[in-house]
């Protein structure tokens, strides 16, 4: 008898508690679902930006890697030829943008994991770390090549460096286009880092 009384009291208390906690629990569950909903949206946008950045980086690599211009005149001893590997900075550009493209393609599965599990912090932290390093690499390649392209366009009278673009027009246009594509990829990567940071917020 006492046992059943004690049990009845417990049940009624806990049912009252349950009724009291129910709106809080429901609110928490709804909040979690809303949070995971908006994080899933952020993760989908992240995937789209990642694919765009990979396209831009690939375009930069291919454009710079296939520049080669041979001038239509030549002397008895050599032909006037300009290729991307005449300048070590452009070689560094091609290698660096190839690494950036490869990383972006390989990080698409991690981005998909973030879409499937929006609240998990582990993959997002890994993505933000690697994206920051990739921002550095892409900006470094783009900045160094931009300096050389600027020099090729304008030359420098103080250092006695001739502006080679006056002769190699097509070469200069292609390298300038590659540098622009690399900067586009770098800006998209910056957006990706900020997006991952926004998605890491707990509330």
């Amino acid at each position, binding site marked *: 008898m006492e046992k059943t009384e004690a049990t009845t009291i417990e049940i009624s208390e806990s049912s009252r508690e349950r009724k009291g906690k129910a709106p809080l629990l429901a609110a928490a569950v709804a909040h979690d679902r809303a949070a995971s909903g908006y994080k899933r949206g952020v993760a989908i946008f992240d995937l789209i930006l990642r694919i765009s950045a990979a396209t831009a980086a690939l375009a930069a690599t291919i454009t710079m890697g296939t520049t080669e211009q041979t001038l239509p005149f030549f002397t008895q001893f050599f032909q006037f030829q300009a290729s991307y590997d005449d300048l070590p900075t452009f070689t560094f550009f091609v290698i660096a943008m190839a690494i950036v493209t490869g990383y972006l393609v390989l990080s698409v599965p991690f981005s998909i994991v973030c879409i499937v599990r929006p609240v998990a912090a582990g993959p997002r932290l890994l993505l933000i770390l690697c994206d920051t390093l990739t921002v550095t690499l892409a900006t470094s390649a783009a900045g160094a090549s931009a300096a050389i392209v600027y020099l090729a366009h304008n030359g420098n009278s103080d250092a006695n460096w001739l502006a080679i673009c006056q002769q190699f027009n097509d070469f200069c246009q292609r390298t300038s286009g590659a540098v622009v594509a690399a900067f586009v990829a770098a800006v998209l990567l910056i957006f990706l*880092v900020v997006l991952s940071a926004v998605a890491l917020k707990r509330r």
Partner: protein
Amino acid sequence: MAGLELGAKDSGSAESRVHRGVAVLDFILRLVALIATLASAIAMGTTDESLPFFTQFIRFRAKYNDLPTFTFFVVANSIVSAYLVLSLALSIFHIIRSGAQSSRVVLIFFDTGMLALLTAGASAAAAIVYLAHKGNTRTNWFAICQQFNSFCERISGSLIGSFGGIIVFILLILMSAVTLSRRH
């Protein structure tokens, strides 16, 4: 229930202690980056070498603003130094208020932008320094370092502070991201 609440509070204060320690480390790293980028800007900006010989018409002189890339390097490092001074205030706010989240996201946004600016300036200057050291036979660009020795040493040394600043920025962004994700 009361026991659970107490337990939550305990872990909460341990959390905030860890966040406070990370925020103090963030402040110190920001100071280090400020000194590095300021030193780079000053080292590059005060380059001036005149060769001891001259002809009747021209004087052989090398300054940082003879090359527009170096001007961009000095400007970029100055902008990043000024930003670091301003962000020290936000860093102190994070030490006091360890739970702030939106301000950390804003800090990450600006940190990433400044990282990109710093990297672009440093790598552009590095490309020109490499060219000044080695020259390029295909484009007929002469290695000016063979004449301007002290100028070359100065510009090469000023790159070190800038690259150190880049590494510190990467650490700062990573620390802010980890602090953001660890909030319970």
